[in-house]
């Protein structure tokens, strides 16, 4: 039960899904976005060379941000709509 609560949801889009191999998944025991980024780069080294922004609960963040259980963190490659 506590485990479910401690999870954050990850979303990847566009070219980043080629690197992450999945577009949505969950992770446990992540305290902030710096820690998250390090773990992601360890798992997917190609992310280090990728340009992307993080959105926490649909808001783009800069710098390090504390994460809470239930947060949705999205990895957004450069937009190319229109």
């Amino acid at each position, binding site marked *: 039960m506590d485990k479910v609560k401690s999870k954050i949801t990850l979303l990847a*889009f566009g070219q980043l899904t080629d690197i992450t191999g999945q577009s949505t998944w969950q992770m446990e025991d992540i305290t902030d976005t710096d820690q998250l980024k390090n773990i992601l780069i360890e798992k997917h080294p190609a992310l280090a060379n990728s340009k992307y922004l993080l*959105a926490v609960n649909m808001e783009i963040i800069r710098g390090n941000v504390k994460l809470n259980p239930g947060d949705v963190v999205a990895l957004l490659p450069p937009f190319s709509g229109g």
Partner: protein
Amino acid sequence: MTEKKPKKVFIDGPISPDFVAKSIASHSTKKDIGAHSIFLGQVRNDMIDGKSVAAIEYTTYPEMADLKFHEIREAAFEAYPLTCLHIYHSLGTVLAGEISLFVFTSAIHRAEAIKACEYIVERIKHEVPVWGKEILEDGSGSWKVNTV
């Protein structure tokens, strides 16, 4: 954020010229409008590594895109005295030569309609989470990068 429900922006596949015509025609009853400005984004058959682009496949982060479109709409109405404002964007496959973005502003005078349309197009290109994968003539894919 207001309580207004975000308007439907996304359209499956290309935006047809007839759809644009119907949108224009629906404004003939709004007789205080003096000027419409329309922007249409069309898929180009760019050459990539010697192969031409046959289509673009658009995907999005729907909840965030809806939120962004809503913010842009509210900001445009705040910044310009518009009578009407419509935004449509394609998802899925749009062939080269077909239209994937339709921004439509209407105002009493031309300056407001023109400036608002440009403002909205720029914000969409920079702020809305939509991604285009260019499908080349041999079926391979290449992720699109927007002109700044």
